[in-house]
């Protein structure tokens, strides 16, 4: 599934990012395969998304989130 489908409070691991669609800046902030991601908060219409990626707290738009592939973590 993609990051855009993540629910609030859910934890996941990034498995793949399509580097053509993702700005380098986001990669540098820790949005890389293998790192953990959690959805902290969503604005109205679930866009933008406020994420905790690998300890970095950042907000990205849904249109960017659909290019990030994740796997949810069950605890």
């Amino acid at each position, binding site marked *: 599934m993609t990051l855009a489908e993540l629910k609030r409070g859910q934890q996941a691991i990034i498995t793949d990012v399509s*580097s053509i669609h993702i700005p380098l800046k986001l990669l540098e902030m820790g949005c890389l395969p293998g790192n953990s991601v959690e959805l902290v908060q969503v*604005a109205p219409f679930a866009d*933008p998304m406020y994420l905790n990626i690998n*300890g*970095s707290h*950042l907000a990205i738009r849904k249109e*960017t989130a659909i290019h990030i592939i994740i796997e949810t973590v069950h605890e």
Partner: protein
Amino acid sequence: MSKQINVALIGNPNTGKTSVFNALTGLNQKVGNYPGITVEKKEGICKLPRGVKAHIIDLPGTYSLNASSLDENVVIELLLNKNGKDYPDLAVVVSDVENLKRNLLLFTQIKDLEIPTILVINMSDRMAYKGITLDIAYLEKELKTKIALISTRKNKGISELKELLTHYKEISAEPCLNASEIDTSYFNNLRKAFPNQLLYKLWLVITQDVNFGKTDRKTYDAVEDFKTKSKADLKRLQQKETIKRYQFINETLKKGQTIDLKSAKDLRIKLDRILTHKVWGYLIFAVILLTIFQAIYDWSSVPMDFIDSSFAALSEWVKVTLPEGAFTNLLAEGIISGLGGIVIFIPQIAFLFLFISILEESGYMSRVVFLMDRIMRRFGLSGKSVVPLISGTACAIPAIMATRNIESWKERLITILVTPFTTCSARLPVYLIIIALVIPEGRVLGLSYQALTLMLLYLIGFGAAVGSAWILHKIMGQKSKSFFVVEMPNYKLPLLKNVALTVLEKTKAFVFGAGKIILAISIVLWFLASYGPGDNFNNAENIVTEKYASQNLSEDELNQKIESQKLEHSYIGIAGHAIEPAIRPLGYDWKIGIAIVSSFAAREVFVGTLATIYSVGSDEEETIKNRMAGEVNPILGGPLFNFASGISLLLFYAFAMQCMSTLAIVKKETNSWKWPLYQLVIMSGFAYLVALVAYQVLI
């Protein structure tokens, strides 16, 4: 002579880099621009032990050396230009103890440039709170650097940092990882083509779209087998590089840092549950804005009244004390009222920057960006446009410069074009004096009518900005690809020192920047109002005495008539009468016309101009406001500043493009005269129309 070394402060945004800068330099700092561009350049001097002086440059915050904005280009250009006068002898990378992993990415990049580098780990006072422990000795060894563990908030570790700076010669310049391993054959080719160059530096030049000294670029392009990779391939390599850097960092931190999650507390998540909430978030934002406007209005009215009356008294005192003559008049009527017109803005500008810097320092501004992005996008703007639109309430110039971190060019252009609609502080004095004249006193729900009117004007400005953005968005069409990444930093209690320095610096910039212009214009205006051509002006006394000879006027009344005869036939009077037909339908007389024309240089000139024009015509010590209230409409009778003309004037100033400096900055940022010209014509034309309709409906 004492020795001086160049030190560059580098770091991610929100790491407290500026606090470190302030702690090192104190008041020994100056803010300028990098040559040719409008990126703010902060530099200062720090005295070190043993007679060494450090010239410290606070570089714009950046997440990496892969630049995506003009501000970030500055960092790379400075670090790559070995012959530049600011090329650092020593780099200081400032990091935040809570985001060490991400901050170290930039650190490893700087190290690869083989510049001696110190790592500052800031906010160390939060380590216990977050359950973090660090093995400094291990980290220093692995990262091949010296580490200063400091807390600018608690004022700890600064002297240790200074000590490290003094021993700058002992700092290692060795890189800490070998980035060229990401594609060995490619980098081997590179090395063959440019044997004398640093590999990582070459790599940066290839991958960046920025202007490194032009000659540099040409020599690289000249070599044939240099560009062997497509853009997509390069990007893949950059991703690989990033992953490799993180591998190194993760391994280093695995041993060098332990985080006890059990003892970690996160205030940020708790606060954000409310502050970025779908409903509460917006409500809180609205309440904060409302409070700010009420505060600006209430708190600054006392010092402003005081300044206004002091300058009136000073002007009167000069007139009485100095020998009579033309220069005394210039001093009393031109220069002192001109100065008064500058000083009177200081309280509001200071308050406004106080609030803006608190919002930014505390980290709340990022939440506003998050909350507003979806709404702003509908109008072709970005959530990041909110910051320019809010700082536009101080001044459009820094606001337009603040658009640089908007990733999409279309969103950025629209933001630049509509930002001048927001109510800048230069409009404030115009609004305040007209509101005081035409809006009745009294309160509703504890808020004064006057404050509400002011708030409404801010909303109108904001609405005009957003509305015109929507129109531009529709006209420009085509959805350009846009990226949006915004960091949500931890909440911090704003540091008094940082806030105070920002307020001081911005106020100073206003007083000495805009102030000089206002003063010069006041002097010229006084001259134009005090001298005139022909008989009607030079013989005013005789003409008036003859004209009213039969009416038996008192001496005072006669003098008044003479002064107004003179003013009407002065250079300015003639010019004013020439444009009067154009502004008469808006409810203005020729005096207001002059004030409007002169405020095309800068809006804040309006009040000063009226003050100058009116003080030329009267003898008594009076405040500007009283003089304006006493003006009579020459055709309809009754006060000139009534409800209709007042509202019309307020609306005209809300929409008109009257700031040469803003036009200049728009030209600079968009690299064309087309956009500032559009702004000038469309905004001012619209302002005229709205003011016309308002006056005709209300009268």
